[in-house]
């Protein structure tokens, strides 16, 4: 999943990176095919080049290695909002068939939620304003749902035309990378369809991991297996993680 995400990052792109898998994937890409990837963390570090994986978006290593450190107001207003960022990374507790993301509450009621999640953070505006959005999430019927309990960040809303109605600058989620494969929006409906399966995963497995009637693309492909170099670079990178402990990332 991390390797598939890293592959999706073209050299020279400017990425708005959250902590966890996105940070790992971006740092992995920078060490492989994309040495000129520009990492922007929402803590205001433009062009950070951390030697090891930070635990939080505010780790000192990000400020030390950045081309520029700016305030949070500037980060959102001058850099994210006008559409200067090529790729935004998002994840969530729930994702629906139109790529909308929930990171707020699980349950029917906002006021009395079953599970209170951390909330929006930078996601609504990342989802709206980055030129494109990559979503990385583990796929399960519990997390890939027909309709999210709460729309924190909009993917394609209720389908084609919705982003345009909202006046969004960016194209929306062009790729959802999971442990099962890759989903992409169908050009006409904007519904997420399965375009790639990871090696060793079958179509039935993918459908079973999805809470809606998952459609597979007519040109369903398999992602190439990880290379030795990809695997070893990822392993090295993860060993450098700040805090030196293995952490479950939300």
């Amino acid at each position: 999943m991390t390797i598939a995400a890293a592959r999706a990052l073209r050299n020279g792109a400017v990425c708005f990176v959250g902590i966890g898998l996105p940070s790992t994937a971006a740092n992995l890409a920078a060490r492989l095919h994309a040495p000129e990837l520009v990492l922007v963390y929402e803590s205001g570090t433009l062009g950070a080049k951390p030697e090891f994986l930070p635990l939080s978006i505010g780790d000192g290593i990000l400020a030390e290695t950045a081309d520029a450190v700016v305030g949070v107001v500037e980060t959102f207003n001058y850099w994210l909002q006008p559409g200067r960022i090529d790729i935004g990374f998002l994840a969530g507790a729930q994702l629906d068939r139109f790529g909308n993301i929930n990171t707020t509450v699980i349950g029917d009621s906002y006021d009395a939620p079953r599970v209170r999640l951390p909330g929006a953070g930078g996601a609504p505006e990342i989802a709206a304003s980055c030129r494109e959005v990559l979503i990385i999430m583990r796929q399960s019927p519990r997390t890939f749902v027909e309709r999210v309990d709460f729309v924190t960040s909009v993917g394609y809303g209720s389908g084609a035309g919705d982003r345009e109605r909202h006046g969004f600058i960016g194209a929306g989620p062009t790729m959802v990378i999971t442990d099962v494969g890759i989903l992409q929006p169908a050009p006409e409906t904007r519904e997420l369809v399965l375009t790639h399966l990871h090696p060793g995963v079958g179509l039935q497995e993918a459908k079973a991991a999805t809470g809606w009637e998952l459609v597979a693309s007519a040109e369903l492909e398999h992602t190439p297996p990880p290379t030795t170099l990809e695997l070893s670079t990822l392993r090295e990178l993860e060993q450098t993680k700040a805090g030196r402990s293995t952490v479950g990332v939300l």
Partner: protein
Amino acid sequence: MAIAALVRDGDTIALEGFTHLIPFAAGHEIIRQGRRRLSLVRMTPDLIYDQLIGMGCARRLVFSWGGNPGVGSLHRFRDAVEHDWPESLELEEHSHAGMANRYAAGASGLPFAVLRGYAGSDLVGETDSIRSIVCPFTGESLAAVSALNPDVAVIHAQQADASGNVQLWGICGVQKEAVLAARRTLVTVEELVERLEPRPGAVVLPAWAIDYVSVVRNGAHPSYAHGYSERDNDFYLAWDAISRDRTTFQEWMEANVLAA
């Protein structure tokens, strides 16, 4: 510290610091003073607000992301929202972009800020401080958020000089905005120096824009002060277990904060 003079029951307070320079020591003093019914404002509540909430200091939380960064949930925050323990917690919830602009409006003496934000998000329906506004030139509809002007802002910085000018550097977050938006302000600092040596990327707050300065060495721990300390990532990881259980949490607070 100046906390006793500054923070009153029922106040709206902002302890800011974006992962870096979080004023933990000041937060602990607020807990020791037994303040109640506070409206807590912070983009990223972090462990210090988890502690304030768990200790019953808060009535309301104004925020944009309430998690333990890179670790997971803030359990005391969740317990308050999900089970009203130790009491119920009102939420005023925003995105980062919205919160940052609310502080900026507050610092600018404006009643609101305009941004491209929240469109299509269910947050709009839950928060009265998000409304829409129409551009008087293009007719385009945009989001408006009301200004934040906390009663008190507290930040932690690396240095103050003899005149009370303050300098912070590294990741500077929204601290300048929080201080300039607030009615009363306290800056805790790692050390007093004769003269502030200008530094790359630093934010300097002149003495006349601040009410109180206190020296509190390591006052941001387990957060950090760039150039003075490292982020105690192990403590952030350990907090998950400490905070998960009400009794463990209370015992830890008793031993490490109330008795300190």
